[in-house]
């Protein structure tokens, strides 16, 4: 068995897939792992180098030879919280290149099902996050948001908010992964690596901000119908783990 050791970002994973595939050792004789995993005897370890070219080759051929749909599912799988996502994506692609876009319907195949489940979990969380994420206005003119999603969602969220708020400066900071999407009013956005201390000292809440937070909390309370109160149902839809980042729960 030859193990290809790669980084955790989607580009790293796609490069890992490239190297493993192009090694021509056969799909059953290769495995993908992340840096820092336990090493086994009797395995050969090869370090994967990440280059834009290799990653591009893999994503292009998924797009052109299979479909955009499979590409999106693959990309999301690479952003999944699943620890073994690199190898699982590899197994999925083996099927996908064989079956074509039909693979999306072959949920009864375990390798497909794995990636499907990863997608489902990610999509569900993304859907939550797009609604539950809160921004606050800073004196520096930036709308600031802090998140801690289980899957690596910041890229997907950034493209959502870039379409939604093109004329705002905003920043979405993933405090689990220490990276942020930063968007400039009227311009584009990008991902930056940033420790919390780097922005914390530079951003300050706008004075007016408290007024809007109070208004929102008021609304959040009055809009409930007392006769229908149902805390369990509320908790079901809005699990506690999201609440520490939401304005209406910060009393």
């Amino acid at each position, binding site marked *: 068995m030859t193990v290809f050791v790669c980084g955790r970002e989607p580009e790293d994973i796609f490069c890992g897939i490239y190297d493993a595939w192009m090694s021509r050792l056969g799909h059953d004789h290769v495995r993908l792992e992340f840096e820092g995993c336990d090493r086994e005897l009797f395995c050969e370890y090869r370090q994967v180098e990440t280059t834009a070219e290799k990653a591009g080759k893999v994503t292009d051929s998924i797009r052109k030879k299979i479909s955009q749909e499979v590409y999106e599912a693959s990309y999301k799988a690479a952003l999944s919280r699943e620890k073994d996502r690199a190898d699982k994506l590899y197994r999925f692609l083996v099927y996908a290149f064989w079956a074509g876009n039909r693979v999306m319907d072959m949920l009864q195949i375990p390798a497909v099902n794995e990636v499907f489940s990863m997608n489902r979990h990610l*999509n569900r969380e993304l859907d939550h996050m797009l609604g539950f994420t809160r921004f606050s206005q800073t004196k520096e003119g930036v709308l600031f948001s802090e998140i801690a999603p289980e899957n690596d969602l910041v890229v997907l969220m950034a493209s959502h908010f*870039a*379409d939604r708020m093109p004329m705002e400066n905003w920043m979405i900071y993933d405090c689990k992964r220490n990276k942020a999407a930063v968007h400039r009013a009227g311009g584009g956005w990008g991902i930056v690596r940033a420790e919390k201390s780097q922005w914390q000292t530079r951003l300050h809440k706008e004075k007016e901000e408290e007024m809007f937070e109070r208004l929102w909390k008021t609304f959040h309370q*009055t809009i409930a119908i007392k006769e229908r109160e149902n805390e369990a149902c509320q908790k079901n839809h809005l699990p506690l783990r999201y609440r520490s980042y939401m304005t209406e729960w910060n009393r």
Partner: protein
Amino acid sequence: MLIQEAMDIQEKLKILSDAAKYDVACTSSGVSRNGKKNGLGNTYASGICHSFSADGRCISLLKILFTNQCIYDCKYCINRRSNDVVRTAFTPEEVCTLTMEFYRRNYIEGLFLSSGILYSPDYTMNLLYHTLYRLRNVCGFNGYIHVKAIPGADPELLRQVGFLADRMSTNLELPTAEGLRRLAPGKTREKILQPMRLVQRGIVQQDQMRLEYGKSSFSGTRGVAGGEAGNAAKAETGKRSFVPAGQSTQMIVGATPESDYQMIRVAEALYRNYDLKRVFYSAFVRVNDDSSLPALPGGPPLLREHRLYQADWLLRFYGFQAEELLSEDRPNFNVLLDPKCDWALRHLELFPVEINRADYKTLLRVPGLGVKSARRILAARRSARLDFGDLKKLGVVLKRAVYFITCSGKTMYPFQIEENYIAAQLVGEERRKAWEIEYHESFRQLSLFEDNRIWAPVTREDAAAVITGSL
């Protein structure tokens, strides 16, 4: 009556959201629109939930009244003329500020603006028009707007508002003319249906115009209003699409003695004759102490509301007709069984259904199989013969379905296809759910809705709304 306009915005928001909360619609669904270069906002066809209130309902829109002042005296309404409550009104600027600032912070998906009737329908509709005009054209708001069409307002005014809004609604509130006469003096069915008809005509006209411009504007995945044809039609009709997310209405459940059968017949007629996108059902909450209103010692009829939503779902997505579900002789839903199970038990001669052969329509009629499960089965069986293990892998929930299906001619385990036996199995599970709804306990998912969308994002809003009855 004194309207307090000088009140601070915090206080106003409290009063005017409190007064708006009995309108159950809070969805931001039905239209996809990309962001605009110099504006703020976009919309998603499936809608987005931004929070959940203490009653477990999804919060998607800033739901407020423009004013809680009203010249009418509807018996069930907290804002009725004869109630002694503090009256206030927003200014258009205040509504705009709240909407824009809430939206920027991602608190909301848009605005739901309703209102009591201040002076006259025209006067009120005009206020709403000016507010929306400002929000769209001065503030550059491009997010979701749901606005009330006020019965009796000038048709031209309604038309103008329709070009600023995404969705419009007129609440029927009571399903029969008799109910309206008793509880909503001053309103008649004709009066309520008139704006609905106007909006419907506006939408139809716009669609025809689009067709004339050739290319269908419905081809893109995002943007019912998108595409060149849409743009051409928009240019013709004043830039924006007319009520692109369609219309909805609401009926109160349990304020008057109408049966479930009457309710779903009315809903069916509204879907057919007025092209409504949604009919909402709102369990009656007794906010006024009035002898003409029923006393509800057990609280609002939540289980009944839930059954109506389930049935409504069957009418819209599962190809059922009201007459198949209920009749004059059996006018109300079974407390212990959801409407689809109930129907299936009365039609055991049609079951079991073979998973590897049955067509889409037939699969949809199986209890426990939803739209997505059925589609997934059709897709998967093209490449393989499916057994029960495969169904599980596809995410099909078998709990109820197992009594109604076979895989390659076999049921999952041997049992007698006999009404009493199956009913007993189904009721056990359903009884727990029903009890939980009645007693405000948690229940995870509505039966008809168990399977989530496959690769695409799950629409939380819809899933949530079905359960809480606020779809």
